[in-house]
């Protein structure tokens, strides 16, 4: 019976080294690589990317300083940010949705390490956004557009915004693990953004840099602001979301809680200073 039924070659077990002690952080990079591939291959991400290409690539070329500058500094963040949010949220919540969370706790890698790997994987869409933004910049330059200085802080804010969106996706999956909540969060954020801009147009989450900076070659109307503090503001918001993502996964809950409190203060300070 055995000869007939056994399909394997009967190879002996491999001597596989395991992580020692409680530290499996060495494996977090491996897991992050796997999760990054899942995020980048996620249908939501791919469809969103296609949507961006259709909107920016097939539509009319941006004409004029304002439109060109705005396309380079805003369009990638504006479109890739939300799809990174949904893609990472779906990857982070796939265990709950597929039922894998019922048994994966029996595996030795802790939930803290797994969430850490997911947060690390968020760098992938951010890096992709950076490359895409540079490609858009070069494309516009290739036909002689954007005849003005592009500030590095404005370029850097694009991948950081996408990183923030991706990290927020993980945080929502971890803190609010219920179906439909990610959509509610996005609708809530957009609604708040629309409302706050009725109070003051420059308090919204998205303020067009073309309207913001005050170089001599910028078109009016100009709004004074500090792009460096804006970067700090974005990084602090991203860190705040990361702390939220880790909050439920560690026994030392006070660590991300304290980190979140500090970063919250940084958000307030940098948020004020960026407005000059």
């Amino acid at each position, binding site marked *: 019976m055995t000869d007939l039924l056994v399909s394997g070659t009967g190879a002996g077990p491999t001597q*596989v080294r395991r992580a020692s002690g409680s530290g499996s952080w060495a494996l977090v990079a491996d897991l992050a690589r796997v999760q990054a591939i899942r995020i980048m291959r996620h249908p939501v991400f791919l469809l969103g990317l296609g949507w961006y290409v259709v909107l920016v690539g097939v539509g009319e070329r941006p004409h004029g300083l304002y439109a060109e500058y705005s396309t380079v500094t805003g369009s990638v963040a504006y479109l890739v940010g939300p799809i990174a949010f949904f893609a990472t949220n779906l990857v982070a919540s796939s265990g709950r949705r597929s039922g894998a969370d019922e048994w994966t706790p029996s595996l030795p890698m802790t939930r803290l390490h797994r969430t850490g790997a997911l947060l690390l994987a968020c760098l992938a869409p951010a890096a992709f956004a950076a490359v895409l933004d540079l490609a858009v910049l070069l494309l516009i330059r290739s036909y002689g557009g954007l005849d003005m200085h592009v500030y590095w802080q404005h370029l850097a804010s694009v991948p950081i915004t996408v990183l923030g969106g991706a990290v927020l996706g993980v945080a929502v999956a971890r803190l609010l693990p219920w179906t439909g909540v990610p959509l509610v969060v996005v609708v809530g954020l957009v609604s708040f953004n629309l409302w706050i801009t009725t109070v003051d147009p420059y308090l919204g989450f998205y303020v067009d840099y073309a309207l913001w900076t005050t170089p001599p070659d910028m078109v009016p109307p100009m709004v004074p602001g500090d792009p460096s503090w804006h970067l700090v503001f974005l990084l602090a918001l991203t860190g705040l979301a990361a702390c939220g993502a880790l909050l439920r996964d560690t026994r030392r809950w006070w660590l991300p809680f304290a980190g979140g409190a500090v970063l919250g203060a940084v958000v307030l300070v940098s948020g004020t200073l960026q407005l000059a």
Partner: protein
Amino acid sequence: MTAVRVQDVTKSFGRTRALQGVTFSAGVGVTGLLGPNGAGKTTLLRMLATVLAPDSGSLQLLGRNPQDADDRLAIRRRLGYLPQEPGFHRGFSVFDFIDYVAILKELTDRQARHQEVRRVIDAVGLSDVAGRRIRALSGGMRRRVGVAQAILGEPELVILDEPTAGLDPEQRLRFRDLVSRIGEGRTVLLSTHMTEDVAALCPRVVVVDGGRTVFDGTPSALTGTADGRVWLAADRDPAARLAWRTADGDVRNIGDAAPAGAVTVPPTLEDAYLLLVGEAAVTEAAA
């Protein structure tokens, strides 16, 4: 060595008492865990897989206490678990999914890990479909993927919850062969409600019903509890608890005792199991 010691374990979910004092132990070899649906088998196995904690009673796995965080981690590093309904990330290929689980099992060296992944995929006979996405596999193949992840890294304790559910006869035989190989030199807990699998594989069987252990012994001892309680007749006997017409045309009756003059036949493990579970159910109702 006794790898599993369960003593008076209870577990409730709200007002439902899933386990009401289960006691048993298991050592090297395949131990069958039999019980009807809703008997508490899956709850018990989830506890043994360190996914759930008991409300009361004591558990010892591989000589360690799963209630202690450090011990729990040590247990998880030596444990393989196939749940009843393993949720898969269906976008993964077979190889990628097993490799993903191997990372979660903390197998560090990438080259050795991939070699181990290929070994377990080969062991369950899925080498030909290693690159195929899980969503494209049949139910039987998915069960095999589940078994493959459970035996990754040569765990000392393997817990299999209903591994043969929904499989065709050939696949079930393949599983028997595989499980019997896994059980050589390590402890395997095999939960099922299929008595044929237990009779074929397990030198020891524990029967759980109504959240309690109602039998713990060898399959032949369990079969022996039905001696003289199975008889053939031309018609259904009113004294029988269960009766069915066989392919030969006789009615096989099983009950508390064969009536005088009845033609008794050697019982099977299934007969004994049905009588035992029936008794437990009656006792529970009376209580």
